[in-house]
């Protein structure tokens, strides 16, 4: 919400409270809907259109959930035959699928851990300190984000080939840390920009060492940004096929397994595991949102302020 303060409307808002909550409340009570023009038809049309767009986004996900209960006749899970729990009872019944999933989780866990640690330090340096070459570093970090994945994978393979490095688990992890770093840096950086430095200065005035200040003040304050960066990194890593395909050697991750399977057979187990990952991610997401809400509500309950209504 840092941006709320810097947008051009500042002059207009002068004298009024500009907190994000106020703006949101204002929008909800007197939004631009139906003012003067009374375009009810246009409104209905727009809502319908948005509904159809959402449907386009959600239908393939629904298809995966539904077809995970299918009992296909052939090798491809394309045509609905009949409802069955068979695939759900034996989700790892396809040879190799369980191992592939395990490898993917290991790669994602390891690369997330390292990328988040390195990326957070880089973001701290970029936002907190003024130093020569900062603009150049900002630009350099942006380039991997603007590079197609296929190029990232191909370049890394060129280097491994030149050094005759055998590709496998380690090279996959190296590649995943590489493509996750920029995402982590950008995510943590955007969180750090609104950071209140006076809190750290207060801690140091009260005699805290730099390390104590970092551990007790800085880290807890930037934690939400670090956690969202880690979640993003994990999701990107476990999803990646393109870059992995250049650097996996004979190691099979879950996406590599699916790619290999897709030409020969698509058993319903693939949809079962996709559904499991989907439901797990959804649950995690809802849990995070719920916890954040609760933390906000607790922070908001102070004697001098009335509790803001939850939107």
């Amino acid at each position, binding site marked *: 919400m840092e*941006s709320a303060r*810097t*947008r051009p*409307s500042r002059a*207009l808002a002068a004298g009024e409270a500009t907190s994000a909550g106020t*703006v949101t409340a204002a*929008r909800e009570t*007197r*939004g*631009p809907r139906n003012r003067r023009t009374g*375009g009810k038809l246009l409104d209905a049309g*727009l*809502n319908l259109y948005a509904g159809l767009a*959402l449907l*386009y*986004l*959600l*239908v*393939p*996900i629904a*298809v*995966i959930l539904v*077809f995970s209960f299918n009992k296909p006749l052939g090798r*491809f899970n*394309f*045509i*609905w035959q009949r409802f069955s729990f068979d695939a759900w009872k034996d989700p790892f019944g396809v040879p190799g699928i369980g191992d592939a999933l395990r490898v993917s989780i290991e790669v994602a866990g390891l690369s997330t851990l390292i990328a988040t640690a*390195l*990326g957070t*330090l*880089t973001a701290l*340096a*970029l936002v907190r300190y*003024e130093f020569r070459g900062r603009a150049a*570093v900002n630009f350099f970090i942006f*380039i991997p984000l603007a*590079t*197609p994945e*296929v*190029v990232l994978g191909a*370049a*890394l*393979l*060129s*280097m491994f080939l030149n050094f005759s490095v055998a590709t496998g688990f380690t090279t996959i992890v190296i590649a995943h840390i*590489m493509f996750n770093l920029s995402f982590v840096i950008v995510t943590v950086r*955007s969180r750090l*920009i609104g950071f209140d430095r006076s809190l750290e200065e207060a801690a*140091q005035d009260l005699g805290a060492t*730099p390390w104590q200040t970092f551990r007790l003040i800085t880290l807890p304050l930037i934690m939400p940004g670090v956690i969202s960066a880690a979640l993003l990194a994990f999701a990107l890593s*476990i*999803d990646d*096929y*393109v870059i992995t*395909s*250049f650097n996996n050697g004979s190691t099979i991750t879950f996406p590599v397994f699916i790619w290999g399977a897709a030409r020969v057979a*698509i058993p319903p187990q*693939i*949809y079962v595991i*996709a559904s499991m990952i989907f439901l797990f991610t959804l649950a995690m997401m809802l849990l995070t949102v719920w916890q954040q809400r609760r933390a906000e509500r607790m922070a908001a309950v102070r004697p001098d302020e009335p509790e803001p209504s939850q939107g």
Partner: protein
Amino acid sequence: MRAGLKKAGLPYLLLFPGLGWLLLFFALPLGFMLFESLKAGTPDSGFLFDWSVSNYSDAVSQFDEQFMRSFEFAGLATLISFVIGYPLAYVIAFRGGRWRNALLLAVIVPFFVTYLIRTLSWETILSDDGAVVSTLQTVGILGEEGRLLDTTASVVLGITYNFLPFMILPLYASLERIDPRLLEAGYDLYGRRRDVFMRVTLPLSMPGVVAGTLLTFIPAAGDFINAELLGTPRQSMIGNVIQSRYLEVGDYPTAAALSFILMGTMLAVVLVWARVAGTEALLGTEGEERRA
């Protein structure tokens, strides 16, 4: 900034691990790929460095069709994503009310399913004996032998689907931060809906439009998964060529040259857009400069 001046080395120390990793595993590999792209030889006899700049022109003339197709498909997918995404982002930002977070969650739900499986799901939906094709055949839109899979339409539809959230999220972010009082002012000054939209809402959402189009176009142009799973070699894109040259044919110099041409084109697109939008908005570093 006092602490920062006292310990001038600290920022570099903090930068070192992350930046070092990117230099070692992003920048240096690009150097090796450049080296690779200038080699001459054949996959059987091996390749030797030979300042073989002609690899670049050969690669372009040999695969110009796939290049053009990549930009055509990516451009189409970006355009369709915008047409689908803008109204949806608008409705969520201005009409979402208490459902706003739930609607945003629905937008990113596709990301909870592995990319490849999302694409396989379209293969299921569009398959020749599936419900969609048989319905369209019954209605007469598709002929008896008509199919949806393995066509240009299915590939573009898949690309659009896979990158649509990248379009919607930045659009939403820029629409959401528009101060509703500006719109009020527009109506108070007797602006009609269309005037307020064209003169206030749309211009203020331009940063989102620029970010969204880039985030959709760049991965779309390099994509090979949709063309592989939902298309045939007749729909193959430059990503397919790079992948097969590297991993199947072993023709590294051509693949490396193609990669550089693709990367260069993308950076050019980004820089042109940066001119239009201003680099700050693009790099997302607006707040920093002001703080410094």
